[in-house]
């Protein structure tokens, strides 16, 4: 083994080798020449980063510029992507937003002339926080660049100001395919310390005292889980990383895997050593090709360098990791279903009267943690439990990554200390609701989370507080809704997802979610009856109480939370056959405002039942006796002349 042609010379045997790699990494990250980095995580790529990268590459080639071009992960501000990051010795690092291929080429000229191109800049960085150093890394900046002040500092940008990036510490800063980059920012030094100076029990103690709770949703204390697994009887133990991330719209785990895969590997290595496991699995959903690729590269590099495999760092500790690709069902992220899937069976949950830490994969003690949980581990062990447990709230320590989406000005991935209020997240980081609209609710926790109304905006966000108000932390989805959202429609949307994604085993979950969906569908179509709310509540109770796994147990949250905070909206639909948010077409009357109508014939042509009369220059009109309330006219009208009541 190990003879891959490169010889043993590449193996990292001790601290000196690590330090040497760090030097290499530092010159890669901060070369003494110009370096341009394009954010090329999936979010960047879907915003067009590939084309920007190519244009810059061609520009550099054509002009024979001595500029290094590199790729990095995601800096979180997905809305402003493609992001291009320019490093120039003597300059602040400048991050340019909303780049295009043309702008990329133009930027090359500007760089050549020593300009800043302030108007395209999102922010500048003059220092970086490194968790593994006491002092931030300050860039040396030449004098005579005073006009840089026109570009806001990174830490003054609203979106970033209140963030604290622990799990995301390297995303956007390093080339995820370079192990040297990771080592340059302190990576694998903790592993070295762990393997050489710490006993497994000490690490478990540290994890317990840190207060770290699992980021996969349930918030189970990580240290306690490790301890149970270490103590469980078995000839072999496994550690597993849950990277199934089945919540639609959530991509925190993807971002970590794509942007900083070694942080997960190092976390798993430390955990495995603490637990006494020598084999690990990373279960990644199939729809994450870039995450699989970057993680695959990371594993290969770590193996080549002796950071995975046998006798790691010369300590005698062995550990290997395999990637397992999941089929993409939401329920496959549930711990027992995930393990069934790794074993080659259908991903279906089973009863957990015997815990997986005692009998998991192939009936052996198995410790499962989420991507984000693992990524936190090296920092916790390096900085110590007492450093970590000062961040966050009494019951929830540290930070949490959220994907902030919906009706909000700044969308993207954010990492904030536990206990930050919803108001701070939405109004400071998210910078409020667009188009001057009113905030209505925020849905947290993924599809089976709950909707939280404005009167609870000052709620500190942590595991227990979110549960108390009828929602949950889940994986960290956060969808902001404004006044134009119908809460019954929202409940229906999530219940529809859950009824499709239930594995279908339990009567209560399969038929419970289906029947809740049917009732909600009826209500939004004007067919709601007295007693529907009570029947929904009864179905919700049974679904939660009688179902086997957490999918069924939490599936009623969307229904229950919207009934709890927006009961009047349900009643308006059922009793008055009205949708206050004017979303449910069947409950609306469509009319055309003759003052606003520009008589363009668009709606007339597209109405499927020819209910609209009018011709050029004659304002159009809708014949209510023919209208089937499909809403097409409202959607297509270029001047919003279609009124609804």
């Amino acid at each position, binding site marked *: 083994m190990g003879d891959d042609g490169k010889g043993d010379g590449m193996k990292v045997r001790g601290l000196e080798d690590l330090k040497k790699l760090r030097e290499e990494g530092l010159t890669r990250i901060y070369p003494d020449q110009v370096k341009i980095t394009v954010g090329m995580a999936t979010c960047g790529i879907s915003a067009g980063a590939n084309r920007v990268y190519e244009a810059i590459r061609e520009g550099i080639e054509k002009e024979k510029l001595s500029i290094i071009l590199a790729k990095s992960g995601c800096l979180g501000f997905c809305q402003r992507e493609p992001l291009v990051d320019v490093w120039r010795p003597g300059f602040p690092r400048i991050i340019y937003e909303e780049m295009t291929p043309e702008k990329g080429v133009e930027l090359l000229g500007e760089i050549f002339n020593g300009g800043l191109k302030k108007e395209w800049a999102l922010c500048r960085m003059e220092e970086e926080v490194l968790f593994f150093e006491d002092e931030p890394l300050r860039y040396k900046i030449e004098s005579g660049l005073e006009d840089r002040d026109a570009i806001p500092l990174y830490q003054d940008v609203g979106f970033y100001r209140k963030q604290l990036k622990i799990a995301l510490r390297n995303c956007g800063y390093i080339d995820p395919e370079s192990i040297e980059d990771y080592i340059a920012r302190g990576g694998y030094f903790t592993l070295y310390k762990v393997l050489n100076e710490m006993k497994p029990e000490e690490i478990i103690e540290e994890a317990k005292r840190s207060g770290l709770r699992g980021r996969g949703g349930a918030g189970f204390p990580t240290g306690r889980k490790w301890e149970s697994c270490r103590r469980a009887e078995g000839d072999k133990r496994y550690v597993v990383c849950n990277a199934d991330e089945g919540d639609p719209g959530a991509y925190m785990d993807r971002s970590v895997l794509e942007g900083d895969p070694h942080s997960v590997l190092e976390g798993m290595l430390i955990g495995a050593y603490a637990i006494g496991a020598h084999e690990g699995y990373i279960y990644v959903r199939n729809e994450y090709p870039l995450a699989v690729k970057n993680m695959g590269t990371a594993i290969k590099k770590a193996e080549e360098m002796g950071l995975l495999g046998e006798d790691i760092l010369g300590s005698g500790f062995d550990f290997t990791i395999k990637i397992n690709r999941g089929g993409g069902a939401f329920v496959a992220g549930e711990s027992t279903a995930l393990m069934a899937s790794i074993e080659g069976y259908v991903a279906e949950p089973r009863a957990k009267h015997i815990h997986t830490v005692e009998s998991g994969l192939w009936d052996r003690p198995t410790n499962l943690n989420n991507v984000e949980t693992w990524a936190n581990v090296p920092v916790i062990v390096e900085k110590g439990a007492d450093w970590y447990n000062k961040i966050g709230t009494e019951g929830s320590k540290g930070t949490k990554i959220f994907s902030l989406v919906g009706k909000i000005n700044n969308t993207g991935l954010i990492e904030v200390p536990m206990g930050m209020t919803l108001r701070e997240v939405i109004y400071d980081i998210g910078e409020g609701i667009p188009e001057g609209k009113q905030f209505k609710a925020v849905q947290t926790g993924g599809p089976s989370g709950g909707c939280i109304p404005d009167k609870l905006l000052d709620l500190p966000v942590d595991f227990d507080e979110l549960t108390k108000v009828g929602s949950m932390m889940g994986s960290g989805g956060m969808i902001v809704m404004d006044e134009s959202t119908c809460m019954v429609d929202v409940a229906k949307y999530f219940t529809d997802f859950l*009824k499709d994604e239930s594995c279908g*085993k339990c*009567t*209560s979950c399969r*038929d419970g979610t289906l029947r809740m969906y*049917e009732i909600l569908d009826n209500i939004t179509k004007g067919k709601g009856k007295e007693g529907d709310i009570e029947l929904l509540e*009864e179905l919700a109770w049974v679904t939660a109480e009688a179902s*086997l796994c957490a999918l069924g147990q939490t599936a009623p949250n969307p229904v229950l939370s919207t009934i709890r905070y927006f009961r009047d909206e349900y009643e308006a639909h059922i009793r008055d056959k009205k949708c206050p948010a004017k979303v449910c077409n069947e409950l609306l009357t469509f009319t055309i405002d003759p003052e606003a109508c520009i008589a363009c014939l668009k709606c007339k042509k597209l109405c499927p039942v020819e209910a609209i009369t009018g011709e050029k220059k004659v304002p159009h009109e809708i014949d209510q006796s023919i209208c089937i309330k499909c809403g097409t006219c409202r959607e297509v009208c270029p001047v919003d002349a279609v009124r609804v009541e």
Partner: protein
Amino acid sequence: MADKEMVRFAIDGQEVEAEKGTMLLPVALEYGFEIPHLCYHEAVSPYGACRLCLVEVTKRGRTRLTTSCNYPVDEGIDVTTDSEDIQRARRMILELLLARAPHSERIKKLAYEAGIKETRFSLMDVGDCILCGLCERVCREVVGADAISFISRGDKRDVGPPFADPIACIACGACVYICPTDCIKMEERGDERTIVKWNRTLKMQECKSCGKPFAPLFQLNWIIDKVNLPKDFYDLCPVCRAGR
């Protein structure tokens, strides 16, 4: 797992004893407690799908609703088989099941006993199948043919031969026997047997002595192959063989 460890615990206040790790439902039934159940059968492993066998278990001071068919018994647990919450859950589960299997006598009876006369939900056109999975388990675990499986998830979940091709079904009828809602029908016409739900028709072996068809030829060859029996082992029907 060498020697049997016995544990003592209480069901509805009565002290009972059982081997540690056995499932609670069979123990309770053995002791004469009545717990309605649909997806449990002693011939196959427990699965926990119908959710009807709910009981309340108190363990280390914590009480929760749990299915009894797949709950391994433990020293000192306190089991309640008939609380208000249990009845409340049972009623809704039966109401849900009644909408799936409105023709099933067993479901109708259980529902009636729980006070449910009709269901508020629209009836489903699923041929009375409640997706209990007994047919799948008996076929896989007992018969060993593994001819049927669950298909799809959520409200589209179904049970049947994979890719709608019953190629592995030996038409033995074990699923017909075990199905709690009688929704798997078996028909015998002349020398052919059909398992209607799986759309499988097989020729029957005729007894070389009395001439009566007695079992699917495919099944007999399958057993001969599997257990390595002499080729002429099934020439006679069981009656003629016994009388020989």
